[in-house]
């Protein structure tokens, strides 16, 4: 479903993505681990097309998307959430989700349909809101809701955007244990055919939801395996747990 071949990216002399190759099957749940600064977010930026790679290729369904702009990648079902909230602050939660859903449903350019009152679109919006735990908050202005709610909306925008491949960048960063377990629950309810790549710091969550785990360090893939193999790997505990204090 998603294939990354020999992807490289440097900022000046700093190599941030170093010959990264990945292969995700359709419906696979892959967790990306790695210390701060390992190049995880940069990898997502490359996949989503927000920055161009120095070399290498990205494929979806066997077709290269390396030269496609951000908006075209979103159209073929590549959807992402951000580590730093990237929302429509001046709008309500419902309006935020409508914007994302309208694009996915091919309505966003219509001069005739009022998406605010479109029943079909409302249904998608309420469904996604319920999924991420914002069901009763559709009328709230984003600027007035808590950080935790914004994290939920961040994931909600990606889900409402009709993904085939979902990239989530530390969806639970900075939220409390109850919201982490709620997010845990959400992951289990996602349709099985959805391919998911998550950058995650919560080890329990990572080991529990992942089919497979990729570990990045200094921009390189240093380990790839099942959760059990990862747990058993001394290399991973050295790299990752050595950095554990900084990341918590």
């Amino acid at each position, binding site marked *: 479903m998603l294939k990354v071949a020999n992807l490289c990216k440097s900022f000046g002399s700093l190599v941030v993505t170093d010959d990264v190759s990945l292969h995700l099957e359709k419906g696979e749940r892959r967790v990306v681990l790695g210390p701060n600064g390992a190049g995880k977010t940069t990898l997502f930026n490359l996949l989503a097309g927000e920055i161009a790679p120095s070399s290498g290729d990205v494929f979806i369904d066997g077709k290269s998307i390396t030269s496609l702009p951000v908006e075209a990648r979103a159209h073929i079902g590549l*959807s992402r959430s951000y580590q730093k909230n*990237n929302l429509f602050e001046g709008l309500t939660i419902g309006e935020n989700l409508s914007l994302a859903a*309208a694009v996915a449903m091919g309505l*966003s350019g219509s001069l*005739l349909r009022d998406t605010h009152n479109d029943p079909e679109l409302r249904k998608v919006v309420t469904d996604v809101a319920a999924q991420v735990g914002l069901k009763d908050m559709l009328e709230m202005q984003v600027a007035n809701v808590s950080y935790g709610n914004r994290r939920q909306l961040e994931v909600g925008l990606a889900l409402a955007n009709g993904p085939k491949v979902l990239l989530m960048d530390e969806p639970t960063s900075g939220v409390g244990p109850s919201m982490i377990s709620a997010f845990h629950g959400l992951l289990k309810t996602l349709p099985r055919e959805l391919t998911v790549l998550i950058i995650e710091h919560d080890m329990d969550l990572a080991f529990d939801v992942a089919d497979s785990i990729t570990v990045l360090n200094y921009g390189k893939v240093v380990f790839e395996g099942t959760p059990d193999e990862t747990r058993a790997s001394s290399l991973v505990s050295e790299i990752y747990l050595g950095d554990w204090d900084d990341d918590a």
Partner: protein
Amino acid sequence: MFHQTKLKTFVLLAILVGLIIYTMNGSYFGRELVVEVAILAILAISVDMVSGYGGMVSLCHGAIFGLGAYAYAAVNVLMGGPPALAVVAAIVAAFTFGFAVGAVTSRTRGIFFIMATLAFGQMIYVMIFDSKSLGGDDGMWGLTRLDLSAIGVNLESGVQFAIFSVLCIGLTYVVAALILRSAFGRTFSGIHENEDRMRALGTPVWKFKALAFGLSGSLAGIAGALAAQHTMFVSPELVIWTFSGEVLIVVILGGLGTLVGPVLGAVVMVFLKHEISNITTYWHMIIGILLIITVMAGGRGIYGGLEQYLARRAAKAAPASGAKTDA
């Protein structure tokens, strides 16, 4: 994001009805003021559509307006075409130019965008001023007005033309409101809120900016066609860039991003200018002071102030309600 609230509907209808009553009871000079309000209000609506809801602050709408007036004159006088065709030409020319400006500038933001619009506007001015066939600095004379005798309206009559102009404000408002509340308009507002996220969600941003600017331009073209018919001549003065600035002042005074506020702003601007210039020649200064007060008072203009005042009063009456201000 745009919502047509009851207050907006009420204020708009009050203005339109007020202007019509004033027209019917007013003098020749009063009717001139009403037409002036109408032209300014239509332009202000078109500017607010892109500036207030899309953050595309334009200093070329005066030029698009002038282009519309000249397109009207070119078809009507040079080609001898009927006024109805001339109106279509005004709208098409204004749309096309607006679309082109929107497309070319879609990647620029802030001050660079504003300067780019100014440059495009000046381009139109120079082209018109230098064009012999368009009359150069003399302009063009002998324009005729739309023939609406089929529905019993005679636009040669000053009263009927003024009322027609007022109805054009209503029409323009409805068109702008429909565009802004459509999926297209909401996505356009989304781009204003967070362009990068809107793009990441799959929106080809430049197309939305270009089309929005084109549609807004076509409304400015309607104002141009109205102005051409009003004076029945066109001259390069119509295209002078300071007019774009004046329209922007009207929009900010009335309430940027409120759609009805700019209409209110046009009424205030025209009548205040008239009243003050009777007393002193320093009316620019008075408008300037008024503008500073509005900006300092929160920047939502006269309409925003009214909305806030009513919301506060409602909150006092029913303390538990969480009043939400709609843009």
